[in-house]
Every structure is written in structure tokens, then in C-alpha cells.
């Protein structure tokens, strides 16, 4: 086993949305390489509390990569240097002893900072409330194979449904675009029977809400998918574009 690490952290501190904010530097010593990044933050916060200082506010909940809360922009990348994981799944062994680590909140107009590293991601909730649902009661889960769904469709829907709404796609994108998230939410329902009746209306409403929230447009850099902890594919964005055009051109609506 490798030895414990001493690190320097440069962390964004901001008292409130109104505050300007600035970086604050901290030393953390004797960090086990087997700790998660959030556990390292717990150690740092314990230090701050015992000295009577304000602990660093950061979002977290499940700490096992499923809730999507742990938004941290670490050394220039969402969720740090590894692919396909969230911050809570990032281990300190991904860093070297003596490293300086820069930690910032997600940056996007649509994700205003609430405090320190905590941002307001309710823009995502509003996009989902605009159309990411099925209005009819579909009852209990059906018996297996009662409603035939092709393997291909099931796989696409399942892969899209893996999105945890973390916002890393927006954080990574140079345009702060939310297209990967929105496309995953649209596509997961577009491939299943219960999503069909509201399919066109959903595409229109969700894209409209996305634009209203002030996210940027896509330039297909692919940064979102590369940084997505659930590796949501760019195919979803292409599919969403088709879906949206169809909804406006083919589908007749008021």
C-alpha cells in the first residue's frame, strides 16, 4: 500500500448568490489514497469546524454514484480526472502526494451558485416538469413480455434512462449546453410504448423549456458525453434533433 498524502486545495468560497466569491487555500495532511474525494472533504471540514471556521458547503447524498448531487469541477474537469464516475466515486489515489487541486462549482448562468460549491440545478427539474413524464396511469409493472418491446429499443431506452441529472454535461460544455441531459430524458420515453401518445408534445415542451432556462446551444464538441458519469451517448442528441424537427414539421399542433 502506498503512503498517505499531503495536499493543497484551492477551493471556491462564496457566501451566497449575491457574494462575489474567491478561492481559499487549504492544506490537508495524512490523506489515505483509498479515501473518496468527498471523504477527503469531510476531513477538511472537520478541521475547519474544530478551528471554529465555516465548513465548505458541497452537495452530496448517495455517495455511490446514483443521485448525481456531488457536483465539483476538479482541476478543470467535472468530477475530476477520471471518466465514467462521479466525484463520490473518485479516489484520492487518482492524485499524487503534494498535488495542488483546484475545486470550483459548476459554472453556467442556468446553474447559479447557492453557496461555495453548491449550485441550483432546478433548471433541470423545470425541464423535466415541462414534458419528461407520462400523464396516464400505466398501472403496476407488466408481466415480462406482456408488451413486446424490441431488444434494440429496450437497450436504447435503458441506456438513456441511466442519466442521473448531475449536470456534468452542462459543466463540461464550452457553451453550457444541456442537450445531452434533455436528449436522454426525451429519448428514454420515445423508445417505450407508454411514451408514445405525448411524444411530439414532449419534445417541443422540453426543448422550449431548455432554451428558456438560458443554456447554450450544442456545437457537437462531444465534451458532455466524454465527461458524463453514465456515458450517455451523443446519439441521443441526434435523435432529439430528429424528434424535435418531426414534432414541429410533421405533427400538427395549435
Amino acid at each position, binding site marked *: 500500500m502506498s503512503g498517505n498524502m499531503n495536499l493543497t486545495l484551492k477551493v*471556491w468560497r462564496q457566501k451566497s448568490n449575491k457574494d462575489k466569491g474567491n478561492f481559499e487555500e487549504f492544506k490537508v495532511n495524512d490523506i489515505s489514497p483509498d479515501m473518496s474525494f468527498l471523504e477527503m472533504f469531510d476531513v477538511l471540514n472537520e478541521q475547519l469546524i474544530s478551528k471554529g471556521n465555516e465548513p465548505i458547503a458541497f452537495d452530496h447524498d448517495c455517495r455511490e454514484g446514483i443521485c448525481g448531487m456531488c457536483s465539483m469541477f476538479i482541476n478543470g*474537469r467535472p468530477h475530476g480526472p477520471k471518466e465514467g464516475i462521479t466525484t463520490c466515486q473518485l479516489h484520492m489515489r487518482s492524485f499524487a502526494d503534494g498535488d495542488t487541486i483546484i475545486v470550483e462549482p459548476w459554472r453556467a448562468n442556468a446553474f447559479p451558485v447557492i453557496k461555495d460549491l453548491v449550485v441550483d440545478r432546478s433548471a433541470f427539474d423545470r425541464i423535466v416538469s415541462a414534458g419528461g413524464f407520462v400523464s396516464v396511469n400505466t398501472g403496476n409493472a407488466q408481466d415480462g413480455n406482456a408488451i413486446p418491446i424490441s431488444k434494440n429499443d429496450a437497450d436504447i431506452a435503458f441506456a438513456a434512462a441511466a442519466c442521473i441529472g448531475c449536470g456534468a454535461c452542462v459543466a463540461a460544455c464550452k457553451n453550457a449546453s444541456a442537450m445531452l441531459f434533455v436528449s436522454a430524458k426525451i429519448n428514454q420515453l420515445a423508445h417505450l410504448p407508454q411514451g408514445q401518445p405525448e411524444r411530439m408534445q414532449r419534445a417541443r415542451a422540453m426543448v422550449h423549456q431548455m432554451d428558456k432556462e438560458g443554456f*447554450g446551444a450544442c*456545437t*457537437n464538441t*462531444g*465534451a458532455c458525453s466524454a465527461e458524463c458519469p453514465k456515458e450517455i451517448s451523443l446519439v441521443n442528441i441526434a*435523435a432529439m434533433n430528429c424528434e*424535435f*424537427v418531426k414534432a414541429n414539421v410533421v405533427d400538427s399542433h395549435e
Partner: protein
Amino acid sequence: MGAFSFLINSSIGKKIIMGITGIFLVVFLAVHCFVNSLIFVNDGGELFNKAAEFMAHNILIRTMEIFLFLGLIIHALQGMNLTFKNMNARKVKYYKFNGNANSKWYSRSMGLLGTLLALFLILHLKHFWYVSRLTEEITSGEDTLFGEMKEVFANPIVVAAYIIGVISLTYHLLHGFQSAFQSLGLNHRKYTPFIKSLGFWYSIIISVLFAAMPLAVHFGWIK
């Protein structure tokens, strides 16, 4: 809002316009590159002049020219509009942003590359389009388009400017070609790898040929 204006004004609609005009420009560029490559036949520009003559008088080509300018203007204006809108979507920037870890620099620089292209195009249109279409110099038989090329490319600074223009084009296309298909909703396991390699080779071949033209004329590799 009507369905059409809703589509056109949405972030996705704007991308669709970029994609359609982009592919239109790609097709034009292939034709343009083919015709100009006739100078490499090395017959003193005879074949090339004939082709240029044909292009200048064919009604179909002249009509397409109008659409070409329209497409280019829409593409450039929409491109600039999108670039500024996107830059504004993150007013507070990151202190450290490691874009190279997840994307190619040129995919993040389409606005800049496009602007360089636009500047180059102003110069380029002045050199050739203006002279061949709006002056009597060539129609009167006083000079040929190939002769005009020799004149323009005698200046090494102009040759350098053309090379910079071509390099901007290479990178703009390296991202743009495949990006247009993604914007238009075509991303498929079967076809996308083909589109990507086609886009790569298209960008490289077009760029090498275009770069070779001013160089070959300047250094007298073709007479």
C-alpha cells in the same frame, strides 16, 4: 408562435440551419476545388480558362451563385449569432478549464475559424469574383482568369494569407463535416464511422489541393 418560427428560433432549429448551409457549402467547395484543380493539367491554364468561361455564362451556375452567397451569409451570420449566444451562457468563467481532456480544440473554435474564413473570403472574392464578374477585364478578353491568378499569386504575402485561409478551412471542416450530420440528426452505428472518415479525407484532400494552387502558381511549378 407558429410551428415553423418556433422551430427556426429554437436552439436546435439554429443548429439545423448551420448544418444545412454547412453541407451546401461543402458541396460547393468540392465543385470549386475540382474546377480549379484543372490548372494542374499544366496546359497554360487553357482547360481551366474554358471551364471558368463556362461557369461564368451558364445560367444554372449563375443562379446557384445567388444561392451560394445567400447560404454563405446565413451560415456566417447564424454562426456568429450562435457563438455569441453560447459564450454568454456562462458569464462567470472557470478558473481552470481543461477542455483538451474531453474535446478537440478546433471543435471548440468554430466561431474563430469561421471568422478567419470570412476574412479570407473577403480577400478572395475581391481577387477573383470581383474581377471576373464585375469588371470587363476578363469578359473583354484583355486577361484570362489564369492570368489573373498569376498576377495575384505573384505577391508572397497574398500566398501566405491564402495558406492561413486554407488551414482555417481544414480545421473548420475537420469538425464541421461530421458535425453537420449530427446536427441534422444522423448518428448511426452503421453510417457515422463512414461519415467521419469521409469528412476527414474530404477535409485533407480539399485543403492540400487548395493550398497547392497559390504555391504552384507562385513558384512557377505550373506554367
